[in-house]
């Protein structure tokens, strides 16, 4: 009985096309990389910003675009289509912050927006800081020895 049920379930679960998804993520992610490099070149050669500041400007521009498109409701459709092609770049970080902010806005400014804005991106910040602390401690200990 359960075997039969399992077979029916297997037949009706939609087949996730791993190959197609991977190729879509590859192409969209690659385009994001090219946009990043183009923005760095634009800031450093046309606005004459030193390369280190140009990187920061590029990140801020991408975050701004991602926040704006998310609030216009356009970015969610793109994420549904390209998935990791937009989640892994810094746009995914901004998208998580912006969508949490929009969602919890109606629960109030302090307990809603303030408490929940960094729900998902807070995890990224916390584990990033913990990881970097541990690894830089290891690095400095190796340097001392």
């Amino acid at each position, binding site marked *: 009985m359960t075997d039969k049920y399992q077979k029916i379930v297997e037949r009706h679960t939609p087949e996730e096309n791993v190959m197609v998804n*991977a190729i879509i*993520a590859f192409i969209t992610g690659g385009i*994001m990389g090219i*946009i*990043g490099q183009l923005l760095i070149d634009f800031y450093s050669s046309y606005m004459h910003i030193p390369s280190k500041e140009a990187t920061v400007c590029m990140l801020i521009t991408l975050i701004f675009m991602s926040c704006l498109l998310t609030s216009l*409701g356009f970015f969610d459709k793109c994420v549904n289509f390209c998935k990791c092609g937009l989640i892994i770049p810094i746009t995914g970080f901004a998208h998580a912050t*912006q969508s949490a902010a929009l969602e919890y806005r109606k629960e109030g400014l302090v307990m809603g927006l303030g408490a929940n804005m960094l729900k998902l991106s807070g995890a990224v910040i916390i584990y990033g800081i913990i990881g970097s602390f541990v690894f830089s401690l290891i690095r400095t200990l190796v340097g001392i020895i």
Partner: protein
Amino acid sequence: MIYLNAFLFCGFICMLGQIILDKTNLTPGHITIIFVIVGTFLDVFNIYDRLVLWAGGGALVPITSFGHMLTHGAIEGYNEGGVLGLFTGTLNLTSAGISAAIIFSFFFSLVFEPKD
């Protein structure tokens, strides 16, 4: 040439994330955190700096660069100010990204209504 490298590197990382997402039960949040920790690890022996030189913006756009900047700031802080620098320098380079995300999403959420 650097555009091709940027395309290949950034695309490869995104493809890796997509394959992990499809093959396992992890959520996108887990995958983002895994990539951040990989980024913090790769900076320990300056591997990621070489990748940035090779791929340019392609290595700076993915979330791994967030982890790379965290470790980079911490090590830079240690070289300048000793052990206290590990605490003061960690967020030095990433503060722009975090502040930008918070500021923009706060004001946009005041202006725009959520769309379903």
